[in-house]
């Protein structure tokens, strides 16, 4: 039986209560929304991208602890990264939260805290919602991405 503490790790709870980069971004030149119609989670990701680099990133919205913490920690993880590095990080993150073999969660730094999500399949969408919105923003898609 999975332990709740594997899912709700301290760092996740902490970020859900005090999300980082939780604001709009004046200088944003990309923006995308992520929406999970099943539970009503809804986030907007703001990006300032230049020369293939994520210069700044922020988010706003509402959702469960997992989705909010994931959005918050994602903004920290990708700020300053090149867009292809962010994409690579997303791939690794996705593998870890879906419990796929082959990716060491220690490649992920703090994001490894989300490894416990793999024991809760219905929560994978919560953990990846902000990431899907990030990708949509990077690809310049204007419409909202939905997890359904």
């Amino acid at each position: 039986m999975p332990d709740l503490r594997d899912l709700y790790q301290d760092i996740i709870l902490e970020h859900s209560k005090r999300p980082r980069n939780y604001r709009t971004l004046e200088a944003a030149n990309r923006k995308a929304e992520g929406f999970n119609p099943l539970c009503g989670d809804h986030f907007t990701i703001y990006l300032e991208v230049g020369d293939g680099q994520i210069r700044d990133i922020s988010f706003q919205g509402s959702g469960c602890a997992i989705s909010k913490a994931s959005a918050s920690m994602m903004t920290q993880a990708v700020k300053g990264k090149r867009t292809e590095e962010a994409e690579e990080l997303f791939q690794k993150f996705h593998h870890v939260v879906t419990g796929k073999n082959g990716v060491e969660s220690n490649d992920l730094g703090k994001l490894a805290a989300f490894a416990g999500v793999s024991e809760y399949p219905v929560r994978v969408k919560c953990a990846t919602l902000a990431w899907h919105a990030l990708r949509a923003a990077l690809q310049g898609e204007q419409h909202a991405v939905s997890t359904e």
Partner: protein
Amino acid sequence: MTTAANTAFRPQAAAHADFDVYKVRADFPILARTIHGKPLVYLDNAATTQKPQAVIDTMVRYYTAENSNIHRGVHTLSEQATQSYEQARATVRQFLNAGDPREIIFVRGTTEGINLVAQTWGRANIGREDEIVISAMEHHSNIVPWQILCEQQGANLQVAPVNDAGELMLDEFEKLLGPKTKLVAMAHVSNALGTVNPVRKIVEAAHRVNARVLLDGAQAVPHMSVDVRAIDCDFYAFSGHKVYAPTGIGILYGKAELLEAMPPYQGGGDMISSVTFEKTLYNRLPHKFEAGTPHVSGTIGLGAALDYVNSTGIERIARHEKQVLAYGTRRLLEIPGLRLIGTAREKEGILSFVLEGIHPHDVGTILDQEGIAIRTGHHCAQPLMERFGVPATARASLALYNTMEEMDALANGLLKVREVFA
């Protein structure tokens, strides 16, 4: 934990000699299951109910000894299956106190029943600029079919508001009624709030302006005695799976004179009396609306489920559920930061709530670890969530087998949720 003292005030579950909830529980094999090593506390009955052994046995018996197609064969099996199928219709007629078994149409569920009315009666009777009135507490299945119809016919949808307790604002509703109103479509009981709507008053007001009334009875039929003739509604729909029957079977009741005049829903076998390439004659009621091979085993299972409810006694069920609801309400209100959504005076066994600072989804995951099954989300009632300014709620919904102890388990589980997020 903090509850040992509180449970001392728990009313005795077996307060009534004629309803023994523990005996009832023994009728439902799934309730013996454990989830994550804890006894299952099933509080998602508004989504679907568990099935008593009598229903399971009936369906096994059908497939073991009676299976065949109905209304088609001269052989014995077909005759027996047809008889069982029509017996189920007679049981439903009696259960709703409809006047005539021809008024009972077997459909897939509430959703199909409403869509049937929208696309047959609605296409024939709703015109440009006509109005359909619903309420702010409808399930999506009593919103979207009317939106589609309005789009097709150039008609307009009007929405009657609810107050902060989650009750229909009857005076506002009546103001919406007028010569253009052709239909009122409303929940008998709200799945997201538990509110019981004053259906007699709704029907009277609608009939005064010559509008027809469809009631969505999905959440009413399991919990109260429903008499469609006393209510005088024109259509009434419900789902078998919410009243201890299998999925995939439901009922549309309609007044015979309306059903007679309505065009058919789907074309196919059984719904015709003769077919040539030039002209097809439709079958009589109720077969006109039952094209194709129906869900025979489900229908027979529904009959068995209603027999089960009848033998337990709907009034006894209602009284028991009311007691558990009252106790559960009290226990939940002791939880710091808990806000109940839906506090109507007339209410069925639904406890919809939010916990301050904690998303319902997280509440659901943590309760699941305690073996407690609740629903979290918008409950297919997004406009209603908006009305109450929440993206989602957690919802515990009751059935006849729920106990006072389970309300304690829920309250304890919620204290645990608060601990995790402390």
